[in-house]
Each structure stands twice: as structure tokens, then as C-alpha cells.
């Protein structure tokens, strides 16, 4: 074997000053040659750390080996055994803390760029006339209802279909994909890619009922009359606010609203599309996670001169993915760290004009293990703004718990399940994803869908609960 390069193969990207004005995807992806070069860095470990670090246990050395040999079709077959959403995972998974974080090569040099390779292989498949199909087992005659078409619901649906069950997904919105469709922006995850992977799940024979709000049109109990099992994957879609003065002024958005207008409703193309959005010149985004990064970068693309991120801890504690923080910085997002808003100030028509902030310092660690931010008395100052986006988190949507008697729910509003099986307190009902964990990640939602599928299949075959 040739000597291994200590550095990973870089992926070419749009230049920051160009991309901050468009919604096109930022990285271009590997060419087949680049992918092969990168794949050849993999050590094919006997005890691969990467697989253990992956919540859905993709056979990483397996698919990488095929790429290294230029056998892309085989690579895809390996991938699809465990992951039906590779183009999505390759783009949005926090690889640095999962597979790549556990990559053996990473102990001495840069870890294998697993995410980039995953993305490559999925995009390569899209250029082929036919895609790799999954094997579907003979029909079992059992019917499964899935509520919510986010990564948790899609994964469970795909797995259950492979096992020969009949699957119907019910989705409240007019487009499937959950956060992938309405939350994560086009420049990070093109919607055509989400559609492609959703269509793949459909092509396996999964039915999709859009515009269907479970809890309103039918309750879980009513679904149980028609279906043998139900999976709840409704996500954590309820926006949180800080409850500080002025939060209802005009121009103050929740991140969900801001991103949904832009992504799902394509407000950045207004007036070609009918949904408008305020295109502020000075936009403040409150928060430090992926959602906040996405909102701050969207603001630039909508034409903001300044996009200011206000976060109450320091850079080290920011929960956003490293790559996204880096991208935001390159594009010129201004970071106001150790800062927290205390109130908003509006003009005579109720439009937000300033945000009053207070400086913070880090005190003792709190329950999350991170040092608790404490306000510095007398340090208030104001930033002129015309748009504010609040991205401090979401809580689970209460509609299903409210309309499902007998379903155990935690104090935080999440559905209580057995983590090894995804089983809820209600016979035949499973749950997984953000509705169980609170806002988390795509891959964890997929992992939960996988665990629940295994247990649901067993339940359908044995009838044992």
C-alpha cells in the first residue's frame, strides 16, 4: 500500500463572497478520482472505530473499500443495507463527533473523510440510469402507520417495508422530509436531494399521505383500528421563546418560521412564489446551534448587510457543527459571544429597531456539564436591528400526546419509550426521533427508527408486547 497522506482530500467549495449571495449548495462534492484517493486512506481496520461511532452502524470500511477500487455500484449496495438516506447523512451528520471522531486513522493524522465519501457515493448513484433497489421480503399482510416523514419516520418506513410489511406515512405538511425539508436550508441540503431520497423510500412501495394531521383528522387510537402498529416520529417542532419584553414586535421571528418561509415556501423567490419574508438589512439571530447558524447564513443570502449571531456562552460551547460555524464565519456572520438579549425596542409602528443585550461570563458547570453563563451587571448595550430570529430551541409538538390517552409523556413533553425497543406505554405504539429525545440529530432520529423497526417487526410476527 502506498504511503498514506496525513491530510484528507479537501472538497472544493463556492468562494464565501460568492455563496453568501446565493442559495446554491456550498461544497461541490468529490470527483470520482478525488473519492478514490480519499478512500485509499482507509486502513480497513479489523476493529473499525468508525462503525461503532455510527448510530446506524453503516459498514463504513466495506463501502469505502469498494470506492477505493472504483466499484461504486457495490459501494452503494453496501450502504443501502443500513442507510436509505446516504445523500442526506453525508451532508448533515455531525461526522466529527461520530464516525470520523472514532476513526482509527484520526489518532495520528486527519481521519478519513467518511461523510464526504458517503455523499459522493449517493450523488454518484443519482447520475446513474437506475438506482440500487432494496430487496423486499414477501408480504406479511401486516399494516403499519407512520406519523411524520422526518428521518425517524422515513427510516422506520424503509426498514419495515423491506421486511414485507405494508407501510403508510402520514405527514402534516404538504412536502415530506420533516426538518430536512422545512428547516435545513437549500445551500446545505438541496431540497431536490431530500425529494430524491424520499422518492426512493416511495419506490419501495411505502405510501405517503400528505396534508394529514394525525390527532385532528384521525387519532392514534383510530389508526390502531386500521393498522397493526403505529410509529410516532413527529419531531420537536414547537418553537421556544425567551419570554422577554418585545418578543412579539414585528420583525421578530422564530427560527422555524424564518426557515420554513425560506425553505419550504421558497420565500427567497418572492414574488415568483407567493409567501413573503422580511429581508432585513441588520439581522440578529439568537442562539448557537445548527438552527442559529442556518438562520444567520440565510439572512445573508436574503440580502442582509449585517448578520449578527448572539450567543450566551463562548465559542467552545457552541452546539453547532464545527463545519457550519466555520462556514458562517467565512461568509461574514458576526459573532457576539457571551451575550444575551434582555429586551427588544420597537418604533412607533411596532417594528423592532434595537435589541438590548447584556454581557455574560461563565460560572460553575450546570446540569449539562457546560459552564453556566451569568449576566455581568451594568453591561447592557444595544445593537440596531430590523429583523430578529430566535433560535434557542424547540420542544416536542403536543398534538399527539394530547389526543392519545394512555401514552406516557415526560415532564418535558417528550414521549417515554424503552430505549432498546422504541416501545411506548401503549400496546402497538412505538416512537422515536426528536419527539422522544427532544431536538437532536438526523442520524440519532434514524437510529431510533431502526431500533423501533426491529422491535416492531418482532411484535408483528409474535404478537408479544
Amino acid at each position, binding site marked *: 500500500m502506498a504511503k498514506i497522506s496525513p491530510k484528507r482530500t479537501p472538497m472544493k467549495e463556492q468562494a464565501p463572497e460568492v455563496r453568501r449571495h446565493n442559495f446554491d449548495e456550498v461544497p461541490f462534492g468529490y470527483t470520482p478520482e478525488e473519492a478514490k484517493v480519499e478512500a485509499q486512506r482507509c486502513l480497513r481496520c479489523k476493529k473499525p472505530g468508525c462503525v461503532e461511532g455510527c448510530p446506524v452502524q453503516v459498514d463504513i470500511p466495506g463501502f469505502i473499500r469498494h470506492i477505493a477500487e472504483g466499484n461504486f455500484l457495490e459501494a452503494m449496495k453496501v450502504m443501502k443495507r443500513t442507510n436509505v438516506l446516504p445523500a442526506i447523512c453525508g451532508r448533515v451528520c455531525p461526522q466529527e463527533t461520530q464516525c470520523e471522531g472514532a476513526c482509527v486513522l484520526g489518532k495520528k493524522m486527519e481521519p478519513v473523510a467518511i461523510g464526504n465519501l458517503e455523499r459522493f457515493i449517493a450523488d454518484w448513484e443519482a447520475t446513474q440510469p437506475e438506482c440500487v433497489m432494496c430487496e423486499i421480503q414477501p408480504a406479511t399482510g401486516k399494516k403499519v402507520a407512520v406519523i411524520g416523514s422526518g428521518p425517524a419516520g422515513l427510516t422506520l418506513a424503509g426498514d419495515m417495508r423491506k421486511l414485507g410489511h405494508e407501510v403508510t406515512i402520514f405527514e402534516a405538511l404538504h412536502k415530506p422530509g420533516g426538518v430536512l425539508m422545512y428547516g435545513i436550508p437549500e445551500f446545505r441540503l438541496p431540497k431536490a436531494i431530500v425529494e430524491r431520497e424520499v422518492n426512493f423510500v416511495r419506490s419501495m412501495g411505502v405510501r405517503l399521505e400528505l396534508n394529514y394531521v394525525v390527532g385532528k*383528522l384521525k387519532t392514534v387510537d383510530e389508526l390502531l383500528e386500521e393498522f397493526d402498529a403505529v410509529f410516532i416520529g413527529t419531531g420537536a417542532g414547537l418553537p421556544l421563546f425567551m419570554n422577554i419584553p418585545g418578543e412579539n414586535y414585528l420583525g421578530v421571528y422564530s427560527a422555524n418560521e424564518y426557515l420554513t418561509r425560506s425553505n419550504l415556501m421558497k420565500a427567497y423567490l418572492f414574488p415568483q412564489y407567493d*409567501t413573503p419574508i422580511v429581508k432585513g438589512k441588520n439581522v440578529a439571530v439568537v442562539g448557537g446551534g445548527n438552527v442559529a447558524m442556518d438562520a444567520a447564513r440565510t439572512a445573508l443570502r436574503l440580502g442582509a448587510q449585517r448578520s449578527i449571531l448572539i450567543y450566551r456562552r463562548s465559542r467552545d460551547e457552541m452546539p453547532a457543527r464545527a463545519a457550519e460555524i466555520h462556514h458562517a464565519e467565512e461568509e461574514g456572520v458576526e459573532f457576539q459571544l457571551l451575550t444575551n438579549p434582555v429586551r427588544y425596542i420597537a418604533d412607533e409602528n411596532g417594528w423592532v429597531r434595537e435589541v438590548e443585550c447584556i454581557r455574560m461570563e461563565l460560572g460553575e458547570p450546570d446540569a449539562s456539564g457546560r459552564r453556566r453563563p451569568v449576566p455581568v451587571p451594568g453591561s447592557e448595550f444595544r445593537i440596531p436591528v430590523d429583523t430578529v430570529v430566535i433560535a434557542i430551541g424547540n420542544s416536542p409538538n403536543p398534538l399527539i400526546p394530547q389526543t392519545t390517552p394512555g401514552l406516557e409523556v415526560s415532564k418535558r413533553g417528550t414521549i417515554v419509550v424503552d430505549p432498546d425497543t422504541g416501545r411506548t406505554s401503549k400496546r402497538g405504539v412505538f416512537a422515536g426521533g426528536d419527539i422522544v429525545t427532544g431536538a437532536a440529530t438526523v442520524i440519532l432520529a434514524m437510529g431510533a427508527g431502526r431500533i423501533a423497526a426491529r422491535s416492531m417487526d418482532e411484535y408483528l410476527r409474535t404478537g408479544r408486547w
Partner: protein
Amino acid sequence: MVKILKKSILAPGVKRLELDAPEIARKALPGQFVVLRIHEEGERIPLTIADARPDEGVLVIVFQEVGKSTMLLGTLNDGDGIMDLIGPLGRPTEIERFGTVVCVGGGVGTPEIYPVARALRQANNRVIGIIGFRNRELILMEEEMRRVVDELIVCTDDGSNGNKGLVTDMLQQVIDRGEKIDRCFAVGPVIMMKMVSLLTKKYGIPTIVSLNPIMLDATGMCGVCRVEVDGQTKFACVDGPEFDGHKVNFDLLMARLKTYVNEERQAVELFRQAQTGCGCGRRGA
């Protein structure tokens, strides 16, 4: 695609559509609404369920053409399709036997108060209906309302139907004649609901209003429809749309409804140009 079964024009700029929507029609209750999206580039617009005939699978909406989307909706005809229809959303009206109730409808609030009035009557309340319009031409659903209430008062701002005054004037008269009112329901323009609430508060009459903030997903996800009730932030789509009128911050609601006035004006202008230009008028861009 949801098919339009029957379109009718109730008054200038006010149209009624019967939609083929069996599942929603079966579940719909008074006070609930739907969200629809006309075509791929369209916005999601909320409209109250004005009536439902579950046996026939028919859902009825009545709307006023105020901006691009409702104007476009108004150009559709029998047999045309609407891309998406979501519902029934929101909490249904609390229907109980209260005693004597007054149902106040202002303009296109009338078709919205109609199913509420009917349900209240079925629950053995004595129902007094008050409906008001700018002028005689704009009067809606008078006959339908008359059939479901014990007494109906119809007024116009300009007196062109022979009964001049605002709905609040009529409500004052009902109060003045010594009627003991146990509850009041009001649907219409925000300013009307505010004035009704101010009046009934003076007399201690519990009052329910149906709020119409801007909405986007209408399933509790985006938070644009937040309204202030009793000093607390509520989401109209899941906590409402009906609230205690004595506790609503109407001024905030009125301000927030103005968020997109400039964009709305631009959209209407383009829509009009497209209508007179190529004549297809579907996209308006």
C-alpha cells in the same frame, strides 16, 4: 388535488366554494378551520370551515378577496382543483347550554359565525344573531342565519337596508332592552371584535372571539400566529383560534397583521398585471 364542486358569488368580492373533502367534512366541528394552497408556488392560507355536509363529503368555505391569494382563489371555477387542503385545524368552539347567547358576525365573519350559531341552537340555547355589513349589497347569508337563530338583526354602516348602525350599536340595543345575555360570540374584522369585547366587558358578558392572525404551517410549528391573551403568548392555530375577548391584546394583533403590507401590495399589482396581460393570471409573476 381537491376538487371544487360548486362555486357561488355571495356579494361583490365574497365567494363561496364547495369542496370535495370527505375526510375533513366528517371531522369538522364549528370554529375549526382549514389551510389551503392553490398551486405549487402558492402560500398556505387559513380559512374557516363555514359548513360541512359529512354525508356528501362536502366542505364549504367562504372568503373575501383581499390579496393575491384570495383573488386567485376567486378565479377558480367548478371542476378546478386546489393543490393542498389541510384540516380540520384549531380547537372547536365550546358548545354548551349557556341560556341566551348572542352571535355577532361582521362582514365575512358571518359565514364563520353561522355554524357556531347553528350548533348553539341545537344545544338548546336561545340564539340572537346580529350581522353587520358596510352596505346592502354586501349582505351575506341572511336567509341561512335566519333559519338557525331565534332572532336576527341585520344592520349596515350606511343604513341602505333600512337599519343603520354598527353591530355594537345593535348589541347595545339588545342589552338596553333588558335582555339577560349569558354569552357572546363575535367573529369579524379585528377592530369589530375589539369593540364588541369592550362593550360586553362593561356588562360582564363572557365573550369569545375568533382571531385571524397571520399563519404559516398552522400546526404549532412556526409561531407566527402568536397572540397575547391575558399577558401570555398563545399560538392561535393550536391554542385557538377562539379566545376570551376580554383578555386579548387586539392592538398587538392589528399591528402584527401589517407585517407584510408592502409585499402584499406588490403581489397584488403583479397579479393584476398578469391578469390583464397574458390573461391566464395563474401565477401573477
